[in-house]
């Protein structure tokens, strides 16, 4: 499955990047393809492209604050959680989201 993600936290220096790493690690170990954009205090890094968003089957937003560019995901299946959830158990989150996606089908 192709996944895209956005990570953002309050101070924008620590949790954001921890969440990104954990998401990538978790998704890859489950055999998914993933790209994660970070919105730290430094600004947007590794911005998701329109193509990536278009071909993604799942959007994971790990944020404690309001993120920019929400309208990019307007017709996508989105999972939105605080950063600590992703940092603690990225794999469970992804598995759980998959389960919900199957149920919705």
């Amino acid at each position: 499955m192709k996944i895209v993600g956005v990570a953002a936290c309050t101070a924008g220096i620590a949790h954001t990047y921890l969440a990104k790493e954990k998401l990538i690690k978790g998704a890859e170990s489950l055999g998914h393809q993933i790209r994660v954009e970070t919105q730290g205090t430094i600004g947007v890094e590794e911005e998701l492209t329109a193509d990536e968003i278009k071909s993604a089957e799942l959007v994971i937003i790990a944020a404690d604050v309001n993120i920019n560019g929400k309208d990019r995901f307007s017709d996508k299946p989105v999972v939105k959680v605080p950063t600590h959830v992703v940092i603690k158990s990225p794999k469970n989150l992804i598995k759980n989201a998959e389960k919900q996606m199957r149920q919705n089908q």
Partner: protein
Amino acid sequence: MNVGAELKKHLLTGISYMIPLIVAAGICIALGQIIGGPDVADNEGSIAYYINQIGGWGMSLVVPLFTAAIALSIADRPGLAPGLIIGFISNEIETGFIGGIVGGLLVGYFVLFLKKKLKMPQSMQGLMPVMIIPVLATVVCGLIMILLIGRPVAGLQNALLEFLSSMQGGSRFFVGGIMGAMASFDFGGPVNKTLSLFADGLLVEGVYGPQAVKFIGSMVPPFGIALSFLITRYKYTKMEKEALKAAFPMGICMITEGVIPIAARDLIRVVSSCSIGSAVGGGLAMVWNVGSPVPHGGMFVVPLMENPVFFVISLLIGSTVTGGMLSLWKPAVTAEDELENLEEEEEEEEDDIGEFDLTRGVQ
């Protein structure tokens, strides 16, 4: 999403916009005072005077920016302009930071309400964002702030400031202790952020003590655990040793989160030891009138603090308490623990990840 989580998200967004501004302004004020001495504000024309002045002007923008960012988070771009004005008003009527929170929420939800409910004929749609929303929101929210919210909030704010400045000896230690324990309790989580909000708000009002306590609470956990590791290496697993290699330098930069993996294996002992050590350090810092005019920066900004030597002593004592407690209290690592850790790395715990829903688009 429930109301509390929603409000928290907007407040945190406000704080995230505000942090770099307070850091820039706070460091300018502190630098000016270090170069120009305590009476820098009287020496007009010197470079130190100007640096100090830049910081002072910068600080006066903190509440307006914070208010505007909360409104922006709630109502998107139309919230920004009225939010700035209401934030400025909050400064003027002396409701400060608390007024900024109230004002930001007020503007944000009022603008959101206007966006949804106010219907204009097609030909006049263009007027909504450039004229109708900003003018209506500013007039209505401005008057509410001044006439209704101003007095009670200003009273609350002043009572708090008076309470903090009137404290002596024992009560200073007690309050510092509670703040220290809060700052360290969840290693950068919600309890820590609540204390941060409180300390940042007081910083804007020129009360620097709680800010220093926040520093101590954020740095005691990594330093204390590192100390305990040096005393009793056999009580830490290989994985914890690796985690500590990252957690200690992060601690110097005042990022506490690095210790989370170490706390996770032994939650009660680590959290209690860190909270008690931070409480002792925080209490001492308050008693010794340590203050930080800067909200972030770890060991690098210690020279800018008030009574920096006592800051370092408080930090050392706090870390020693934490380290000593841990070394005495933690059991030695057994072969099973090492194994367990490896497994955990492989297969993460079936933790409760809380409730979340798959939605179409972002709500």
